[in-house]
């Protein structure tokens, strides 16, 4: 099939951006979306023009490196699918496809379709872990974890950190990403000791970078791992409780 691409090109973080139009003839159905861009890039190189910069790595939907807006949708038209898993079967001959980088103030453009998502790491750094030094762990089966709890923690832990939730949100909120990590750790018995402190720190760090959640639910629709917004409700409840409980705990330590 023959496609027309409108691609966002931007030379650097401070340079003005623009759309450029490219023809993509001979696109095969079985190509992945990123392979289609690879082919466009090879043609550009052979024509002496700079290829389109975009991020990708595993190309099997697990590393979270890739991600672009395709016709205004984060990761494109297929549900529960990262950009690298989207295949050209999703399009028809003659289609015009608009490709843009993630759109969010917290994700500044580095070049073309590549953005800086380090704000997500900052949220993890604020508390997205269980403190346990290497060697200090008890025997693995010492603390039983009910299967439904482990399963729910795994549902949340499936997040690949791609940032589609932020890109899809009209407010560029980081709630789904943060809530998923909090649910993963806060559900497990191992995560209880730091639960309230973790919740406060991560939520407050999130708010430094990202917009506010107004329950549009776009994040859930865009998520390649289909992580549900129920976790956001859990996070909000934990945050409220943390504000009360954490203070009480601190009161015991510092009378």
């Amino acid at each position: 099939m023959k496609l027309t691409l409108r691609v966002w090109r931007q030379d650097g973080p401070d340079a003005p951006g623009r759309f450029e139009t490219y023809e993509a003839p001979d696109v095969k159905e079985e190509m992945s979306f990123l392979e289609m861009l690879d082919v466009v890039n090879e043609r550009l190189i052979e024509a002496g023009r700079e290829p389109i910069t975009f991020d990708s790595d595993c190309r099997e939907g697990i590393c979270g490196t890739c991600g672009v807006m395709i016709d205004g949708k984060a990761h494109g038209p297929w549900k529960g699918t990262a950009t690298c898993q989207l295949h050209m079967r999703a399009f028809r001959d003659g289609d015009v496809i608009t490709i843009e980088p993630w759109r969010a103030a917290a994700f500044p453009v580095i070049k073309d379709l590549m953005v800086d998502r380090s704000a997500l790491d900052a949220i993890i750094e604020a508390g997205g872990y269980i403190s346990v030094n290497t060697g200090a762990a008890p025997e693995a089966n010492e603390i039983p974890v009910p299967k439904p709890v482990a399963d729910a923690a795994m549902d949340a832990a499936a997040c690949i950190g791609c940032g589609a939730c932020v890109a899809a949100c009209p407010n560029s909120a980081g709630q789904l990403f943060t809530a998923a990590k909090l649910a993963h750790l806060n559900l497990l018995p191992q995560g209880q000791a730091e639960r309230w402190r973790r919740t406060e720190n991560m939520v407050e760090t999130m708010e430094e970078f990202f917009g506010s959640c107004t329950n549009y639910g776009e994040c859930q629709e865009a998520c390649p791992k289909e992580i549900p917004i129920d976790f956001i409700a859990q996070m909000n409840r934990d945050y409220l409780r943390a504000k009360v409980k954490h203070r009480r705990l601190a009161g015991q330590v510092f009378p």
Partner: protein
Amino acid sequence: MSTVTLDAKIPSGPIEDRWDNHKFSMRLVNPNNKRRFEIIVVGTGLAGASAAASLAQLGYRVKVFTYHDSPRRAHSIAAQGGINAAKNYRNDGDSIYRLFYDTVKGGDYRSRESNVYRLAQVSVNIIDQCVAQGVPFAREYGGLLDNRSFGGAQVSRTFYARGQTGQQLLLGAYQALMQQVSAGTVTLHTKTEMLDVVVKDGVCCGIVVRDLTTGEISSHSAHAVLLCTGGYSNVYYLSTNAMNCNATAAWRAHRKGALFANPCFTQIHPTCIPASDEFQSKLTLMSESLRNDGRIWVPKAIGDTRAPADIPEEERDYYLERKYPAFGNLVPRDVASRNAKTVVDEGRGVGPLRNGVYLDFSDAIARLGVQVVKERYGNLFDMYERITGENPYEVPMRIYPATHYTMGGLWVDYNLMTTVPGLYALGEANFSDHGANRLGASALMQGLADGYFVIPYTVGDYLAGLLGQPTVPTDDPVFTQAEQALRDEIRRWMSVGGTRSVDHYHRELGKLVWDYCGMARDRVGLEKALSEIPALREEFERDVRVLGTPEGVNQSLEKVMRVADFFELAELMARDALMREESCGGHFRVEHQTEDGEARRDDERFSFVAAWEWQGRDTPQRLHREPLVFEYVEPTQRSYK
């Protein structure tokens, strides 16, 4: 010029005491002195992230470098199946000794017994550590950890987190790392690629890196450098590795004096989705567990292009069941892969490009019902359908082998130190534990063993001898010269002004390596490889086109240096494969097989590690041999009949 002597530093005594005795005999660094030492960790996969977090917890000052935008993205994340540990939670006869035995045997007697024993010993601690970090392993209704048997193992020792075990283990290590970043004990450099190892007076003193966002080149010094930079499957261009996986860090260490061991030991995974066209960028692996219920077949007739449903039962060749009645479709990875190649080479391949074999679930669906098959393999079937557009509940899957792991790597001693003092290699980047073939669910185990439980001890022994010594300042001539050499290299690539893209040459190189040094190798092909690879390299250096500037993001420039290193590595792989006149594990020399077409090992002549020493660009590497001694596991020939 060579003064290298290979000393594996294997401790003496009974094998079960060696690691404990060694830990006791190693020197310690006093807690207050640890902060005087700087350690560089390159790579943030399982090995790198776990090492960096553990060393920072001990009090060392750690600098971490990754070319990813976040440490969480390393390719360890893509491992599906699970992680082995000798917990014996199933009461089914597993033990440290059995895991050790299986790993040595599975590696076809080309690994070091002492290293493998230690790996099996610390495997149990890894599970404890990961559970405490919050890794959501699969559980039973009683709340205890679930296990499964994997890759033909006779015991259930594999721990897993759905089909995303690598992801969850990596997130655990990444989170431990980020905690140390938050504590200020780790300095994290993302989007920064290591492009040289710096050696002064024979000792590793730091690295040179390029900032992938700005193009800036800088030097970083340390008392020790840990390369945790993964394997080199992408030398084949098409592999199950991520797009950015490369050999550059290990290769540049090799050029600075680190010996490269067993480069021809590469593993081919039998159940991947076949390439669909010329522009295929990578191959997707599907869990080996599919072979538990799927039946593998091709048409009996050459060039049979009928749809699978139109081929009657008696015209199908279930070749694995026919040739290996005892193991059938569950023969080991290398045997399954080679047989697929044989039937495809015969012209009996299936699919539009005739480059696959069928993996058929119709019998399993008839026996178990769609629901059970869906419960077992639903996510894999969905993945297959998303990629191919075919529904495997109705049409047989098409599969073909692809490269996905490299057992070879930088030579290291028992302490994981390379032949350059102060330079270590961990995880897939080293060669030490898997011999000629890796068992399923053992890659995650080794990466974490090295990072959490080996390097924190062994690096201390080395650093204790350096107390009071400052690091080499980065304005020392060794650093400024290395930076200059890198700037010159970059300028050279930018000014070639050729006609074809880097990917074009990478693809061409990959075809040569796959054809001559892939699933089956022979003298004629390897000799061809040794003449065709340098010829292609010469063309690449003359004709490649790298556009843009050295400043700012330039993905073609990143790739061109990696591909240049792959060219050199490919040549060494062919030379190693040519030298090794035997078949073992993933290395199958057509000339060395039994009458039944099985691999024939030659323990008399080849029971050694081949460690190659760089001799300069225009001289072939020099071979050093580390003899392998088997005191516990008696070498036997494998048979799956």
